[in-house]
């Protein structure tokens, strides 16, 4: 199909607003109960929301549960186990939740003192409200998208590459979902995008990696649809 007949890629942007759920955990048991009963968007927030939150330099841990285990309850062992969970490997937030609960149960079985340890600073269960809005930017082919990506705000990258995982789980991200329309060259870019690990890097670095992936794979700036 000629590229010009394909649907355009409309760039969107988003703003995230943090909401306190009012639930707090001071002990590992309370954390477990909180995770087991948390709404799905709260689980999502604690794995992905940090990318749009104030933070300093790079994240030490890739999810809030691991960070609290290390700095709140000072249990490095469980912190490390929680930190290697890659949320992209789980097809649903409920499966992701189960894995976290399972690891906590395992640790509670092996370290009895963790039933009694109490953190000074509690874990605060949060969730987020996301407002998505259109922009006046759209592109018709991957070359145009390649040229546009370096100029996109971090929040737009978040929407299309991170938030998309909830909306188009089978494709992984909005760029990949759209690139399906562009034959082999599109496939090559998709394969490169699938290799990007967005988890530890700031969104500005993620944007650069996306731009590099497009530039590397679109030889001479030409894609034949």
């Amino acid at each position: 199909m000629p590229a010009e007949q394909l649907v355009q890629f409309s760039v969107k942007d988003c703003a995230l607003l943090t909401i306190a759920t009012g639930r707090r955990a001071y002990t590992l048991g309370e954390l477990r109960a909180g995770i087991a009963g948390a709404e799905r968007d709260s689980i999502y927030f604690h794995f992905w929301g940090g990318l749009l939150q104030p933070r300093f330099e790079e994240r030490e841990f890739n999810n809030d549960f691991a960070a609290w285990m290390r700095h709140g309850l000072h249990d490095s062992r469980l912190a490390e186990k929680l930190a290697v969970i890659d949320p992209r490997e789980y097809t649903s937030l409920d499966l992701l939740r189960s894995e976290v609960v399972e690891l906590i149960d395992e640790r509670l079985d092996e370290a009895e003192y963790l039933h009694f340890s109490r953190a000074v600073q509690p874990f605060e269960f949060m969730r987020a409200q996301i407002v998505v809005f259109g922009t006046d930017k759209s592109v018709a082919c991957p070359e145009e998208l390649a040229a546009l990506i370096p100029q996109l705000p971090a929040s737009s990258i978040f929407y299309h590459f991170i938030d998309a995982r909830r909306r188009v789980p089978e494709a992984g991200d909005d760029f990949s979902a759209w690139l399906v329309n562009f034959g082999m060259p599109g496939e090559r870019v998709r394969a490169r995008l699938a290799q990007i690990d967005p988890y530890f890097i700031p969104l500005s670095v993620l944007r650069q990696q996306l731009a590099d992936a497009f530039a590397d794979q679109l030889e001479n700036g030409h894609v034949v649809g």
Partner: protein
Amino acid sequence: MLLDDYAQVAGEDAIEHLRQLARPLAGKRFVHVNSTRVGGGVAEILRKLIPLARELGIDAQWEVITGDTEFYECTKAMHNALQGNPLHIPERLLRVYEETNRANAEQLRDVLAAADVVFIHDPQPAPLAEYIGKRSGRWVWRCHIDASHPHRPVWKYLRRYVAAHDASVFSLASFAQALPHTEYIIPPSIDPLSDKNIALSEASIRETAIRFDIDPTRPVVAQVSRFDRFKDPVGVIAAYRLAKDYVPHLQLVLAGGSATDDPEGEVVLAETRAAAGDDTDIHVLALAPDAHRTINALQRLADVVIQKSTREGFGLTVTEAMWKGKPVIGGDVGGIRLQVIDHHTGFRVSSPEGTSLRLRYLLHQPRKIQTMGWKAREFVRENFLVTRQLREYLTLCVGMLHGAAERIELG
């Protein structure tokens, strides 16, 4: 255009974001209500949020409630009680609080009842939501205070008024209380173009030093804060004295403005002066509420800034100091935790001893002061400028006007 000026500091992206978020809010009327037009972080930030929102096409207004000395005595006690001070507020003062709000509700009824979104700042005007009667818009209670461990009897009294709102906003998740509506988390921010934060010439900083008899060639540490027990100015003097044995030329500046809604300030100022005694290297400066350029110069004059609070809402003076490239030694409380990152942007401390230790560490390593100061400024640029706060208020308004759905898709 004001927005163009901000684009230069915060970046074009940030401003474009604001324009897009403001589009669905064009023509809507937002009213902010607080209890003072001068002094304190709330008045300062409203002075910039309002014109910025207007430039984005939003009909933003700012109303101030008025009361007598007893009203402010009561609200100051409430403020302290919300921060954990176990104060008993006499029934007589609570009646003054209610009557004052009833009278203000009468005066503001037309404006508030017709607004699309009303932001009520802090406890002073909280009862308006109940007293205003029929209202058409959404009401949001904005708490700027560290209410993580409120004195329960006072919170129990206030809760009824707060619960009458459609949502509330806290600066940190740990400040949020059990309430029957959505509780948003929005850290406050500073205005980089205000008199308090704008770049100053070396000459004007030197002139300020001379005016207050401060020697700019010797090390200076400063705490800029209201004279309030929770800011622990006496503890800062104790820390200075401990450090002075190791840094003999050290000078301390304790500078504070006063606000019309803070009757306790005079008492704490007298205590601070008494603690300073006759040490000519301690400069206790009670400044006019509008002495913004002076405060700006004093923060820039300092090698290291202290904010040794024992309770803190967010600590905008910390943000201001960081924006000026100063490492901050701050109390390990409230919003200071979000800003002061140990060994990166400063140090968090819990005692005068800890403060003096970190002072000695920094004052003996000028290069550390420089690198930590640079990091501090960039951290503020990314996270704590007024453009970020306005973006979150706009997001909240869009959310409020579209119901509290988890995901709101516009256009």
